């Protein structure tokens, strides 16, 4: 039940073979059983039960709000939820109870979903591993010490019982990816049917890829950012993580569309996407950007990339190599823009109106300093420092303005490809399978991000939609994923092609034996 599709569960709910409350309890139990992975910062038992009860009342009256009524969802802990802790994984907001709901949260609520909890993330979403949270790291379920089976797989992976691991092995688990690692693990473990993440440079797609689930980064401006605690306003988008393209689409249809509270959302009304079961792959023109090949890419990833390109080709699609010449500059440019906006966005955390506050009473400046050095981790503080450096009058042209120019070039790279009759781009999502914690944490946050975001952040720079799909398992039995990118607001094309690919490859399901 917990690993089935939203559609099939919705059918059960509608036919009363299952109640929303039963589903909610099962979900809460699953959250409890998978607690060791640390996917959740807050489990909202009471809220969930209340939501489920209301769903049941509606369903019994035949007043269902639609397919999402009664469906358990989870929310990354950087979306404001009224009356519920929204910590951003930071000491700074460890006591922050927002007085309002983010637009996406209230839209999910209006659709009747049941919120089961708030998911772990890197502090203020600055990271790519969900290892930098004051609530501790989130572990990937794949390769974890939880017993599971991989259904319909020919892979050699066998579930390993907890006892089989030595202590050192236990510490050497695989990361979930990040920064929306909690959301991805929650979806992968059946702790919810879908979860919201946020995506600034790949924060939704990266953990979805490592956790073997589907992750969508919508076009910038399609989904409201009101209530999403910002990392980089000009790159952030709410992301969607679910176990299938269909489920992702259902959520997108619920949360997308104009919002008066976010002036950067497009004004035209959103048209819900209903996915066609079959598409004419012969009409598809797929580009393979050559610059996405890089030395750090594992051969396994290169293999599945090639193989998937062939699958498209064999089905009649046109597959051509294309060039996005400024790709290699993208990550540096991304870093500058990121740090500048971080410096600016973090200025409000002074401890006066919300969040933690220091004890200094000598002067306001001292109080600010104490609050901020206590409240932020080193990653956040160093980004603030360099961001402020880039924004200094004497550096502004050299860094910020230059980064904006490079950003434009990157966007123009994509435009040129689309103008060259390419419908979609196919690339890896990450350079490898999920790294082990110890391997990952050998590098500093900056190095981690540069490697992890290599394939994902250009879509943020261009504002375009991108989706990650699990393709196959690695030798070690961990998910390997690929990404499809489409022109601005071509979510329909993107999702239909992704659905086709999902059906063509049928990635094995993970089933927890707990």
């Amino acid at each position, binding site marked *: 039940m917990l690993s089935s599709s939203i559609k099939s569960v919705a059918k059960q709910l509608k036919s009363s073979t299952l109640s929303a409350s039963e589903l909610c309890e099962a979900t809460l139990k699953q959250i409890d059983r998978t607690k060791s992975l640390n996917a959740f910062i807050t489990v909202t038992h009471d809220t969930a039960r209340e939501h489920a009860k209301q769903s049941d009342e509606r369903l019994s009256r035949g007043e269902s709000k639609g397919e999402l009524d009664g469906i358990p969802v989870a929310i990354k802990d950087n979306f404001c939820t009224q009356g519920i802790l929204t910590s951003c994984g930071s000491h700074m907001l460890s006591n922050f109870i927002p007085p309002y709901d983010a637009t996406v949260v209230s839209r999910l609520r209006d659709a009747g979903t049941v919120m089961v909890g708030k998911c772990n993330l890197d502090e203020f979403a600055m990271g790519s591993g969900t290892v930098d949270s004051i609530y501790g790291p989130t572990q990937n379920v794949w390769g974890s010490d939880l017993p599971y089976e991989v259904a319909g797989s020919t892979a050699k992976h066998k579930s390993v019982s907890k006892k089989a691991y030595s202590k050192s092995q236990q510490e050497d688990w695989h990361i979930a990816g990040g920064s929306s690692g909690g959301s991805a693990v929650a979806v992968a473990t059946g702790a919810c049917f879908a979860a919201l993440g946020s995506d600034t440079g790949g924060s939704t797609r990266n953990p979805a890829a490592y956790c073997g689930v589907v992750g969508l980064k919508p076009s910038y401006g399609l989904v409201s950012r009101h209530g999403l605690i910002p990392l980089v306003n000009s790159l952030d988008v709410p992301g969607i993580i679910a176990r299938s393209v269909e489920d992702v689409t259902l959520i997108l249809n619920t949360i997308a569309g104009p919002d008066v509270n976010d*002036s950067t959302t497009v004004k035209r009304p959103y048209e819900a996407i209903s996915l066609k079961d079959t598409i004419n792959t012969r009409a598809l023109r797929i580009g393979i950007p050559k610059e996405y090949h890089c030395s750090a890419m594992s051969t396994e990833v290169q293999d599945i990339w090639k193989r998937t390109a062939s699958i498209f080709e064999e089905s009649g699609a046109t597959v051509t190599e294309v060039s996005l010449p400024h790709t290699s500059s993208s990550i540096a440019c991304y870093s500058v823009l990121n740090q500048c*906006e971080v410096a600016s966005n973090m200025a409000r955390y002074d401890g006066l109106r919300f969040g933690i506050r220091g004890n200094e009473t000598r002067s306001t400046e001292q109080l600010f300093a104490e609050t901020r050095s206590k409240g932020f981790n080193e990653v956040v503080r160093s980004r603030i420092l360099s961001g402020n450096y880039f924004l200094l009058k004497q550096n502004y042209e050299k860094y910020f303005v230059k980064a904006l120019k490079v950003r434009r070039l990157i966007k123009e790279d994509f435009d040129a490809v689309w103008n060259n009759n390419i419908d979609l781009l196919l690339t890896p999502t990450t350079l490898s399978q999920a790294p082990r914690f110890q391997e990952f944490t050998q590098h500093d946050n900056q190095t981690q991000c540069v490697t992890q975001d290599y394939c994902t952040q250009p879509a943020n720079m261009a504002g375009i939609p991108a989706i990650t799909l699990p393709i196959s398992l690695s030798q070690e039995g961990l998910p390997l994923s690929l990404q499809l990118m489409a022109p601005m607001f071509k979510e329909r094309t993107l999702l239909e092609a992704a659905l086709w690919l999902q059906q063509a490859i049928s990635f094995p399901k993970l089933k927890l034996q707990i």
Partner: protein
Amino acid sequence: MSQFSILLSSDWKPVVGLEIHAQIKSASKLFSGAGTDFYTPTNRSVALLDAALPGTLPVLNRRCVEAGVLTALALSCDLNQVSTFDRKHYFYSDLPAGYQITQQRSPLARNGLLKFVVYKGGKDSRLYDKTSYIHQIQLEQDSGRSLHDDERSLVDLNRAGLPLMELVFKPDLSDGEEAASLVKELCLILTRLGTCSCKMEEGALRVDANVSVHKEGMPLGVRTEIKNIGSIRAVANAIDFEISRQIQSLNKGKQIVNETRSWDAQSSKTVPMRDKEEKQDYRYMPEPNLPPLHLRVNSSQAMDANMVDVLNLQNKLPELPNELRQRFQNDFNLSRLQAVRLVNEDVLLSQFVEAMEEKKDRNAIILTDLLLNDVLAHLNERGNECFKVKDLGEITDMMHSGKINKSIARNILKELSVSSALTAEQIVKERGWTLITDSKEIESFCHLAMKEYDRVVKKHQAGKANGWKTLESKAWQISESRADMELVKEWFRKHLPYKGK
């Protein structure tokens, strides 16, 4: 020593430029839905955005843009078809986001001008036209307010996020009186447009003045900035004080320091401000949450629901003070001074306009005199008390027809100010206050006057001293100010000619 001798000469030329923050009159703040009422209790007009709660986003208030555009049009500015918003960063407890959203790089409007009249009554009176050029007009948010006492600092965020227009003028004024006149004219314009209340006592209009002095033909001197001057009189006084302070310092061989000063109204001095923001680098950055602001500035542009239509606003511009003054001079033969004074007084102006609309052939000069002398005196004395236009019109007409004179007019006003039960005409009728023109009555006043001033009459007849004036005023007195003095004068000249020199 030669340096000193240069400094000792007194041909210093002051240069003054103003930066004015005018709070846009609107129901809600610039980027949030919170209210703007000045009298709201502390921290009650604060939207989540105004407290910079994480995740909140600014949404531009269209009404504020329209007010800005209207103001820019009235000041002959070039409007930018596309303008943008920037973040200006600094840490202060009353700046919740750690930055102010303003328009630094591409403001709403540029290159305007303000024509105004420099007018001052009294012993060093002056009256001349002046133009000051506008560098730019930008929209921005206000900060909150900090309240300090010995033990604590408290913050009121009601003001945080209020909509401001910052008007940056070029430094083309030469003293405090010019600056005060500029501010006065700006207030007239903004209140006429309805884009700012200009209530300086509520901080709705705040003036910063840049002041420097230099010698003709030499580069500009080091300037100081006087911050947040809170009244029109203070503008004149603060600037004039600062100019003479600088000249005195330079004459003593001291140097002027580039600094921020404030006006202390109690001691009538400018004093250096505790410099909270030394040399700040504001680390400007484009505001990423606000799309560029598009204006429709010519008819070839298609209208988009998100745009603000300048062409439409252009048609809504009212007649501006300068145009009014010109029209009053042309149409009603008012003097320049009368026109200036009339337009300066909001209440009188509207009464004038209304009274003239009510009766087109009314004598505008008599009306203006009545307003500027007598009505204004009442206004100043009583604060807000206001006569009915109908009464003022009747008084004007009665004066014009000779039915009453100035003195009766005054009495009527006095009467009206106490009770408005009767109209001006009714008062005259009831009290029998019409001017006495009956020749018999006039003659009897004159006879009585001669009787009382027997000695004056004798000297007059002997040709020693002309007694007309004394006798006339006595007759005036005897008539209880109601005699038509033209007739009294005429009678004396006829019946008591003067034969002296």
